[in-house]
């Protein structure tokens, strides 16, 4: 009887090969950075990374759910900006200042926009990438036409959001400075737990995996494709709406044309974590590790003495190599078991 590893005891499953591989990359990279520049090892860096990465972490969870359902969504950054900006503008028009209200409005707008995606995808049987490409520019363009693209600096940002952005769970005072763990950490954790619960402990989650694995057989066993897809894209929109508010609060600067264009990077980060585009596969831990890698490259290349311009090169090569390994293994497996479909 072999002793079960810590990982198995916590996650109740063996570690996937992509997770092992990513973990190895992260560890090696951290060691290299730490050797080059010991300043990297500080709570400050860690807290900074958590604070900066929390927004895209939430987005990544939505992307993961969509990928598991066999689709690919590139409209989530547009949804995040649209719902965040619209709700802030709405609150400004109504003339009061309440964090709960703004989050609620943003989340509802996000879910509605997500359901538009789902309806288009379901009823016209269109490729998800192209639909969401279209809706992304349509949503964002519509918002820009209707509301304009005025930016708000810290003076104009609602006070409740500023407070939200700067509130912290715990603060550690060092000799000269003090740094704090942002409250975003808690929200990210809550989102991870919620996603995990929905995916692995509810019927809805199993349906998402089922339509991702094989849509035809899923519908044959009586799963409603429409309802499942509505859930998937609404959930993605919901998380995007939440992220919109967190993003604006964290920056204490509201710019309605930011964030757009980073969606492919986030999808790439989730894909690197082992989510297959063909659907039905993907783990939350993998997505988290993928985002950590992106975040590490983004914030620590400076410690290596390389400018931010090297970021894409690093991430692109890691992405390409890991995709290569992942799919080459699949290809060998398919060859051996005489599976002739493309994937």
């Amino acid at each position, binding site marked *: 009887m072999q002793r079960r590893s810590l990982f198995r005891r916590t996650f109740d499953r063996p570690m996937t090969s992509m997770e092992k591989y990513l973990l190895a990359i992260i560890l090696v990279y951290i060691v290299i950075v730490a050797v080059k520049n010991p300043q990297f090892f500080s709570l400050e860096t860690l807290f900074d990374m958590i604070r900066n990465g929390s927004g895209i972490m939430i987005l990544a969870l939505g992307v993961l759910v969509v990928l598991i359902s066999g689709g690919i969504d590139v409209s989530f950054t547009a949804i995040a900006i649209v719902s965040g900006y619209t709700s802030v503008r709405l609150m400004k028009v109504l003339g009061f200042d309440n964090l709960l209200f703004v989050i609620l409005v943003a989340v509802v707008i996000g879910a509605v926009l997500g359901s538009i995606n789902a309806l288009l995808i379901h009823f*016209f049987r269109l490729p998800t990438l192209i639909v969401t490409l279209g809706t992304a*520019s349509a949503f964002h*363009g519509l918002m820009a036409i209707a509301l304009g693209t005025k930016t708000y600096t810290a003076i104009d940002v609602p006070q409740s959001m500023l407070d939200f952005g700067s509130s912290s769970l715990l603060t550690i005072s060092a000799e000269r400075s003090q740094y704090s763990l942002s409250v975003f950490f808690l929200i990210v954790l809550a989102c991870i737990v919620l996603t995990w619960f929905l995916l692995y402990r509810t019927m809805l989650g199993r349906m998402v995996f089922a339509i991702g694995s094989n849509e035809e057989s899923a519908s044959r066993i009586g799963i409603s494709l429409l309802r499942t897809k509505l859930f998937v894209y609404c959930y993605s929109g919901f998380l995007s709406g939440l992220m919109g508010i967190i993003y604006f609060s964290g920056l204490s600067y509201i710019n309605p044309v930011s964030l757009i264009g980073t969606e492919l990077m986030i999808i790439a980060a989730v894909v690197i974590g082992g989510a297959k585009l063909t659907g039905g596969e993907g783990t939350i831990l993998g997505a988290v590790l993928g985002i950590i890698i992106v975040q590490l490259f983004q914030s620590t290349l400076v410690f290596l003495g390389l400018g931010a311009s090297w970021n894409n090169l690093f*991430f692109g090569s890691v992405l*390409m190599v890991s995709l290569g390994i992942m799919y080459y293994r699949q290809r060998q497996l398919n060859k051996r078991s005489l599976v002739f479909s*493309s994937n």
Partner: protein
Amino acid sequence: MRSLRNLVLRDKELAVLVFMTACVILVLYITLGQRLFSPTGLQSMSVQVSEFGFLALAMAIAMLTGGIDLSVAAAASLAGIMAALVMSGQIIPVTDENSGILFVLGIVAALVTGLLCGLLNGFLIAKISVPPILATLSTMILFAGIGMAITTGQSVPVLVPSFAQLSTSAVANIPLIFIMMVVAFLVVAFVLSRTRLGRRIYLFGENEVALRFSGVRSERVILMSYALIGILVGIAGIIMTSRANSMRVGVGDSYLLQAILVVVLAGFNPFGGKGRIISLAVGLVLLQLLSTAFNALMFSPYAKNFVWGAILLLVMVLNHFVRHWRLRQPPEKPAPPAPGHKEEVRPSPVTVLIPNR
């Protein structure tokens, strides 16, 4: 009348597209008239369309194989950067004597870069079996990263004076690069419809497994088509560099959405195997007309973006109905639209996935 009807029925999507283009031309002619359709207006439109036409052509080939190439814009700007680097005097100083050689070298550098980028995509897709979206997503980030690492985000100027003339010179009042694009369209149309490679590209998009089982080395087809895409992208990079007389990372990024838009607009099936180059040409004309009209009406870039996205969705929904237009005629099942059974005229990956309700 009958032959016209047959012509329309043979390619319904093309007919719809031509009709839409004709309507747009009519409306624009009435509203903007002289400004748009003057010789200079047409000339500037034909210059603008050629920069983007090569990328659309590349995207169309990728979609015919059932894939998509997200890296076209990044690869084009990388190819342009390579050309600009050769001609910037940073590697070899530019003098009067060697400017001719540098001109040629720059073009070769761009073409080779484009070809290598395409081959890398093809290798990942054919030999490693990475799905095209992911393979080209990773190479898109990689190409942008390479360009960024080389230039650190700075714009690379071109010092060879004759290079800018490439985009300004004209033959009989027709811009040279427009002629290049027309030639490229003719060549690609010939390759796709008259050669073995073209036939196989269509077949690959239709049913990859069947192609492999009929003894065709299908991996080579993919490699060849992405190599072709790479060359087209390289030419696009040359034109972009020549028009701006400099190059930096991320120049053509906005073309990615538009390239996908025009290819879908032209009735190419994103699942592969269907689409004609002539439709693509009509689609390009339509898109360029609209784009110029928006500029004349001074739309903001966001408004333009909105229109592009809306058109993309509208066209796909419209194409969906056009595809099932005749199939819906016999009203066997009146109430809920259950297109599942009737659609299996041409078995494709799409119809296989359609659920029975």
